[in-house]
């Protein structure tokens, strides 16, 4: 079975890589979380690309589930960020250093 790497897959890989680097370089919690969302969406794009090229509809169903999961995660995450902000007046990841002492 010959497999062509479609352009979409390269795009998905690039977005995923941007997300990974964003997480490694950014310090603000919201920015980090946005990068995570970027990675999720890159994976979604890969799913849909595969679903398209293989002619299988499951990939599209996966995409719907993943969006729901990402929304649930965002709800918990933002609540957590607000809690941290109320306590510390900042959500820079570097300022959280109570543990490990």
């Amino acid at each position: 079975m010959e497999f062509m790497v479609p352009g979409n897959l390269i795009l998905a890989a690039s977005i995923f890589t941007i997300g990974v680097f964003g997480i490694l370089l950014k310090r603000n919690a919201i920015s980090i979380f946005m990068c995570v969302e970027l990675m999720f969406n890159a994976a979604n794009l890969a799913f849909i690309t595969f679903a398209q090229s293989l002619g299988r509809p499951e990939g599209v169903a996966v995409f719907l589930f993943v969006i729901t999961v990402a929304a649930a995660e965002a709800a918990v995450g933002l609540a957590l960020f607000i809690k941290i902000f109320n306590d510390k007046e900042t959500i820079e990841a570097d300022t959280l250093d109570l543990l490990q002492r």
Partner: protein
Amino acid sequence: MNDLYPQISASLFQTLPILVLIVAGIGVLVADVLLPRASRWLLSWLSLLGVALAFIALDFVVGPAGREALPLHSYFGVLRSNYLVFLAQNLILAAGAFVILISPRYVGERRIPLGEYYGLLLLAVMAMLALAASTELLTVFLNLELLSITLYVLTGIENRNLRSGEAAFKYFLLGSFAAAFLLLGIAFVFGATGETRYDAIRQVLVDGTAQPRLLAIGFCLMLVGFGFKLSLAPFHMYAPDVYEGAPTTTASLIATGTKVAGFAALFHLIELAAAWSDAAGGLWLALYAVALASMIVGNVGAVVQPNIKRMLAYSSIAHSGYTIVPMVVMLQRPDLIADARDAVAYYMLAYTVMTLLAFGVPAVLGPAGESRIAQYAGLHRRSPMLACVMALAMVSLMGIPPTIGFFGKFQLFAVAVQGDHIWLAVLGVLASVASVYYYLRVIVTMYMEEPATAGEELESRRLDGVNAFALTACSVCVFLFVVFQSLYLFGV
């Protein structure tokens, strides 16, 4: 359409324990709103009832029917039951019951909101049950995420404690980071095989029509996602912080239930990968490196930790490393899958029992006993039973006979030797010899050292009935299974 009904009703029946827990979890959340404030203490008993009903459903309603026709498939092959899953689900329920039993006083002292705490605890246990049985890529992802999201909340649930919030923050960001890797891995495996169900993927792998490169990338990315959940070495960074910052009761659930579910799911994935002839190369090497790194990092890291919960976190990293040793072997020797399954199942049992004990003692001691190991000085005079239980947990974690920890480790390394992975077995044994140092340090502190100043003393605590019951039951298990096994081995 009509022919679907029998299968759907059979599937509903087979997932009865999961359904019971969903109902119980939502029931607790509703009861929290309806009950007057003074009778909120009922919630812990209500959630214990939920776990007990799930246990009955699993062992006495589904169990007998399930045992006749293993392996069972439900929801069109999305969930599977075999004896590894059956054991894992029993262990998860036992861990859930243990955590609920030791919770009331801890939760009361910390002013943790009861309804959310118990409701999410039940939902987390339900997600663990489902994850242990999952044999479909999307189902694995959904259950892992459901598990993670509930645990993020349970970690940060302590409102007044900044450490709890910080732990949840780190857990959340790194956890969703790892979930994205898992999802991309799933996408690649789907792309390489065109299937999402394990049995269909296996067929494609056996036929050899999969895309080897995509498949290798996919499995490795999935390994990253699982490695995070199981706190395996290169992905363990969050574990010490989370275990330290989270409420100790939550930490004990993270250390046992999550890992048991994750091991069962990872075992199914590796079993699947073993059907692929190329898996003995790159994937084997990756898993080998992860196992070795976990054993080394866990045991070396634990030596320098002054904090009891951080020490236990590193110890659980090391134990995850031991547990995947048979899975490494399995990739090169598919003929040993049955032995590897036995070894992993037995070690899951051993690990759960002794880790629950080791976390139970700090949870019962409360604020005074969950930070520095030095606080345990002279514990044997003030709380002889707790000191004894903690010592028992440490001896079992070391792997000294006749405790269950020894027999668990013995089986793991026996599989490694049988499968020509002598070096892995030797390094594993050396790593667990090194672990004696830091486990023994706890025992020495408890029995031979005196508190340096009066302030260092732990207040003596009376065990209440439920705590004592939970700890005693677990302690008995440390020996009981060994007795059963000996009887079985000698044919009595």
